[in-house]
């Protein structure tokens, strides 16, 4: 249905090989904490609150992997926010594809979704549940709200037939194995972020 719109973002991240002081690193640090589960309030991002401080956010994408309260899979921060909390947070059972990951969130798509936000993307329904929301991308149809699970095609809302909601987009709320695409418009928006507010990351 949206074959012509689906596009490879060609945005790659790599594990850091040098830490902020220039020493070799695996790009992974592990921090012991007394906090049993972190809330969605940035506490994992500071040593003072039981987490760990970010590496310089103009040179590194920081990903905090931890236990989260309330069954939340992850949360992000848009470009232009405070440096001290910049990056993405992901529930440990929804990070990557191996080990303790649990279906249906075991294909690494929570990171795809959160990094989408980090690069300036909005939810596909535009964050209002009444068809008035806007994701500021012209090639994604309007949608009334989040789709969950593995929806049956089509999911028609906001007079968006015959194709309905683009629920298979990484910026909807479906299961990992049900989300497969960014659109050209979304990739253009991410590239604009990498040429603008996050330009110090590009080409590192």
């Amino acid at each position, binding site marked *: 249905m949206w074959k012509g719109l689906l596009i490879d973002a060609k945005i790659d991240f790599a594990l850091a090989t040098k830490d902020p002081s220039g020493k070799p690193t695996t790009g992974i640090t592990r921090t012991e904490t007394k906090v049993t589960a972190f809330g*969605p*309030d940035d506490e994992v991002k500071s040593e003072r609150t039981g987490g760990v401080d970010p590496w310089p956010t103009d040179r590194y994408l920081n990903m905090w992997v931890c236990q989260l309260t*309330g*069954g*939340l*899979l*992850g*949360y*992000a*921060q*848009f470009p232009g926010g405070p440096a001290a909390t910049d990056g993405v947070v992901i*529930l440990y*059972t*929804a990070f990557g594809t191996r080990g303790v990951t*649990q279906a249906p*969130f075991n294909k690494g798509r*929570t990171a795809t*979704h*959160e990094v989408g*936000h980090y690069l300036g993307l*909005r*939810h596909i329904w535009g*964050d*209002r*549940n*009444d068809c*008035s929301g806007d994701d500021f991308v012209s090639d994604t149809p309007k949608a009334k709200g*989040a789709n*969950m*699970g593995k929806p049956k095609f089509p999911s028609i809302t906001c007079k968006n037939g015959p194709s309905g909601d683009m629920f298979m987009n990484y910026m909807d*709320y479906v299961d990992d194995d049900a989300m497969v695409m960014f659109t050209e418009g979304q990739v253009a928006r991410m590239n604009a972020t990498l040429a603008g507010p996050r330009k110090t990351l590009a080409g590192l």
Partner: protein
Amino acid sequence: MHGHWVHSHEEDTGDAIVLRRATHPFPPSRGRTSFELHPDGSYVEMSPGPVDAPEASTGSWSLEGDRLVMGADGDGSGHVWNVVDIADDRLVVRD
């Protein structure tokens, strides 16, 4: 009817929306909407914000026959739900 109701979207069927008490053992989710209906007619709704962290909004609720009417404060969109079924631990509504 008052108390903290959380959308158990895994249990939805067709256009029926299933809510459970906050103490229900919910599995992980990208986001989950809930509302806390207070006896004084006010409510607090928590729903996924633009970067997935839950955000709170407030309003007033009332039961008009079988309709649960939730009027949001400010420019929020609010809801009118048709109540299909209610038990101690399970509330089923339609949009």
